[in-house]
């Protein structure tokens, strides 16, 4: 029964169906469209997921502006800027990887760009880990009983309000970092497929969709960076 259907569905053109075409799609175009739309819908979902944290940030930032500015000074904007640059560069290499598969560059070029993306992602994560460690040293881990800032807290700001900033910092950057780690996990098999020469101008959906995901994760950071790092810049030295 299904072979009959297949014969009618895929057999009409002179060329045989592409090997990557799943049985329930009519053609590659439909399959590509479905994949891309699926990723966009997923991203919409992600926006709402992060949205909860952005809402919490907004609420407490409005309530405790002084505490947030003072606490923000504990973050090093130079390191943050460096990491922002690293992440934007990784977006560029990812875009180039997509381009390489779209125009059918050799698999070495494809894998090369993807490897560069992974590398930059790992640099970002390494720097992040270093920053987290710094917070630990300064007693800024926002868990009840652990939170014990070594530097004095400015007048008029309670420890609780101060801690509020740091758990938001950890929750937001932590969730972001988790997305990057997952991203690295997803790109690994895609690189393997690229190495095996699976991608071509006709079929490169996985690379393209992963690219969308990666750019989305970058954009989240573009919002996190000013909200968390640059908040207290003009109050520098105020504490």
């Amino acid at each position, binding site marked *: 029964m299904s072979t009959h259907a297949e014969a*009618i569905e895929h057999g009409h053109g002179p060329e045989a169906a592409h090997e990557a075409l799943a049985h329930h799609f009519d053609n590659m175009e439909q399959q590509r469209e*479905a994949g891309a739309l699926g990723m966009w819908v997923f991203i919409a*979902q992600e926006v709402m997921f992060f*949205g*909860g944290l952005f809402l919490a940030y907004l*609420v407490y930032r409005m309530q405790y502006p002084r505490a947030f500015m003072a606490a923000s000074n504990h973050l090093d904007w130079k390191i943050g800027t460096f990491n922002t640059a690293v992440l934007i560069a990784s977006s560029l290499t990812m875009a180039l990887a997509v381009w390489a598969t779209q125009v059918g560059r050799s698999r070495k070029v494809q894998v090369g760009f993807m490897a560069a993306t992974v590398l930059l992602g790992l640099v970002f994560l390494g720097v992040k880990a270093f920053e987290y460690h710094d917070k630990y040293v300064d007693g800024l881990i*926002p868990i*009840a009983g652990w939170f014990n800032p070594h530097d004095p807290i400015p007048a008029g700001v309670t420890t609780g309000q101060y801690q*509020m900033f740091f758990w938001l910092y950890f929750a937001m950057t932590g969730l972001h970092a988790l997305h990057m780690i997952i991203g690295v996990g997803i790109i690994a098999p895609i690189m393997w497929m690229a190495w095996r020469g699976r991608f071509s101008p006709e079929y490169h959906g996985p690379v393209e969709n992963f690219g969308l995901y990666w750019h989305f994760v970058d954009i989240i950071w573009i919002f996190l960076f000013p909200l968390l790092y640059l908040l207290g810049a003009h109050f520098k030295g105020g504490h």
Partner: protein
Amino acid sequence: MSTQTTPEARAQEWRGRFPTVNYLNADYGIKSWLLTKDHKRIGILYLISVTFFFAIGGAYAAAIRLELLTPLGDLMQSHTYNKVFTHHGIMMVFFFLIPSIPTTLGNFLVPMMIGAKDLAFPRINLLSWYIYMVGGALTFAALLFGGVDTGWTFYVPYSTNFSNTYVTLAGLGIFINGFSSILTGLNFIVTVHTMRAPGMTWFRLPLFIWSHYATSLVMILGTPVIAITILLLALERVAHVGIFDPALGGDPVLFQHMFWFYSHPAVYIMVLPGMGVISEIVATHTRKPIFGYSFVAFSSLAIAVFGFLVWGHHLFVSSQSVYAGMIFSLISFVVAIPSAVKVFNWTATMYKGSLSYDTPMLYAYAFIGLFTIGGMTGLFLAALGLDIHVHDTYFVVAHFHYVMVGGQVLAFLGGLHNWWPKMTGRMYPEGWARFAALVIFVGFNLTFFPQFLLGYMGMPRRYHAYPPGEPMWQVLHVMSTGGASILGIGLLIPGVYFIWSMRYGRFAPANPWPATGLEWRTPSPPPTENFAVTPVVTWEAYEYRPVEEMEVVGPGAPDAPAGGQHPANRGVETEEQP
């Protein structure tokens, strides 16, 4: 069967029970089910699982009703009672009602109704079932280990600072389960956009598809918010970061805002699919096109959009500003309009239609009446002043059971009857089914109508005892418990005859009602890829002909062969003429 024992022979026997090769007998064995990527089989897996969780939720409901039979808290301690109503709510809302129609009928029908071979992402579809099972297992484990006592709403600070029950584990299960909803919604949206058969334009889509599309939007945009909310709750509970704790500068009302930002839209996840089912049933069983198709279609989208703007009506007494309360109240009244549009359009469709009394239609009648009561009392609650009186009373309990049980559960049952012939290839016994529908209707009203009165008189929800000095209260509670017993029996009957029919029911023709949808233009049960030939759609949705005309020229929908051959008697082989 008794002498045949090899798997091969059993497979042979299994195949012999169907007249055609179809999705049920194309493959054999437990593995072929657990690893299936066929949307129809996944729908069946979900059907079994949601029924399981429904039964568990039902058992807790029975315990609640038993306790309330008498004024004194004599059956269980208050602490146990807290757990019982919490377990009831969690099981019913997160593991039954939210997945109920979309994952079973939706999974089964969405691709078939639009003329596709499967959902866009079959593997993700299967994954969603596994995620659902893992989430369900974790939450169920939390209940078995000792339970949760926070209510299904998990309000802080009780849930974070005081309750010493398994809040985190149950929350984890619900968190995980959320992703199954998200994946289902994602799959539906992409499928409806990209997989429609040639000629199946947006305005030829069955209204079932529109309502599932709207549901999917809510699933995609709402579920992640509850996910992050539960994550924060767990963070607060485990690490005590202070987000919801006033002692550390946090705000407990923020939790309520975030919770209801999802959970109000979620009540539409719990009713929109049912509305889609009712639209199909009403058109089919009155043999008329739906009155005002595009109004009904867009009202689904309107509900999905406005549903996101009314969450504050749950916070009228939670220190929300009066002005916010007024605006939320106003928008809550607005959101009732699209629901009313549907009710009016169904009624107008029935007007001068050939009304049938087949079981699916009985459920549709019940739905329309009960949903109207549920929706109208929603407006009572959305009225600022009145809500202060009835908030957290049985009035609210009655309200949401009218929409959730009188609405979604009855629509689910109606839909199961309507598409049972398609899903299993067998007819259910009509007489028993009508009887059960009647029992359920009576039982339901007897259970929940007295609760409106109780609530109005001041009976609070979530209490396991009430003053013996109020004679009316016990009378009403006894009525409610009696009704619940009838409802319980009524729900068991379909359970029995559905299973019976899978073996002994009459073979179903391809199109028993007969209906115009694409899902009826393929054998019952359908083959694995649904259609032998991808259908080409050249007609509008619901081109029904009245019965008299149908007897002469066929049931409607242009490609049905004209001339006296009644489709119900037609052999399955002739169904595939393009």
